[in-house]
């Protein structure tokens, strides 16, 4: 592949995680660390998608219930569960996932947009899908994972 082709079709790394039967990918550049489940302190009056807050080396980080966010049924956390600390445009949040799988490399040309048949807001954080190992990987745009209003609300915790 020529230099020009590489520029036009950059390779990105994605951290993949599992939720239910599906596998999702998030941009590795936005992943700060992956934690085992520790004590998550509930926040009174928080929206349903907020599990609570954790103390990460002196910083308070809000943990999002990703299953709730994606409309999946609740599930008790277990040994495989992880909190992925991610950095969005201006916030650091944690997302609880069933398990973290691997880091994969994908070419931009491998990513296809997912059909959007619902309203624009409900799935705007789905960046696209790609086939990998005979299954579909759903790529999540973390910058759109929370709306501006939701981010502002998180600042209140």
């Amino acid at each position, binding site marked *: 592949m020529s230099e020009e082709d590489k520029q036009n079709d950059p390779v990105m790394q994605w951290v993949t995680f599992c939720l239910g*039967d599906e596998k999702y990918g998030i941009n590795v550049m936005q992943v700060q660390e992956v934690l085992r489940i520790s004590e998550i302190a509930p926040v009174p009056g928080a929206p349903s998608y907020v599990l609570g807050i954790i103390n990460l080396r002196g910083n308070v980080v809000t943990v999002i219930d990703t299953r709730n966010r*994606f409309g999946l049924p609740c599930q008790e956390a277990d040994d495989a569960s992880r909190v992925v600390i991610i950095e969005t445009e201006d916030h650091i949040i944690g997302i609880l996932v069933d398990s973290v799988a691997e880091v994969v490399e994908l070419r931009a040309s491998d990513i296809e947009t*997912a*059909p959007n048949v*619902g309203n624009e807001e*409900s*799935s705007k954080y789905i960046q696209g*899908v790609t*086939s990998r190992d005979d299954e579909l990987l759903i790529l999540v745009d973390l910058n759109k994972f929370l709306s501006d209003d939701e981010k502002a609300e998180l600042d209140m915790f």
Partner: protein
Amino acid sequence: MAHDKSPHQLVHQELALDSYLKTLLDEIPSDDAASALDNAEAQLEPARQQATEPLAPPPLEQAPKMPDIDVESSAIVNAPAVIKRQPLSLMPEWSRHEFQALFFKVDQLILAAPLTELLRTITITRQPTKIPGQPSWFIGLLDDQDKRVGVLDTGQLVYGKSRGGQRDLKQDPFKSILITQDGRWGLACDEVLSISKLEPEKVRWRTLRKKRPWLIGTVIEELTAVIDVQQLVPHRKPR
């Protein structure tokens, strides 16, 4: 089964069936017909059983090509009542002459779709990948022969969310998918039944389709709903 039920139940069922049949054979101007359909749905199993019998069951792959038929000779084209109600151009091309229809089953309901609107049928061996944030009738994505197919819950599209949405797809998954002609959408169903030729005059066409535009007609003899696939699938383009 009917013979297990009391005379009172039988009378109730017959009334419901009569109401449903009348609804199908009339124009359907409002939601009343939809509710009649819903109310009578549970009573219809005997009629459905009958409806499947006359259908020739050639496999889809061996279905003969649709014959070339002179459009001018088609009865539906010449029917003045139809022309008066709606310009013919608004009816799909396939409805103007004899067409082959694929009969399939969703829950207990038998539906028919024109073969020309379909590419193929596939058996579901792996559940579609669910995409977060999509409506409940969008089951998910499935890769099929280099195409990414959006799989739709036909039951929910046809029955509506209140009834069709009650199905637990984990416990009771659909078995087959009808792939639309453009390869973009898949109509999930429980069983692919048969293929049969239908003549336009044997179908009661719904020429006014303000409500439920996907229901384009009813096979008069078998009382099977004919689906306009183009109207059933979403029209939103991918982002």
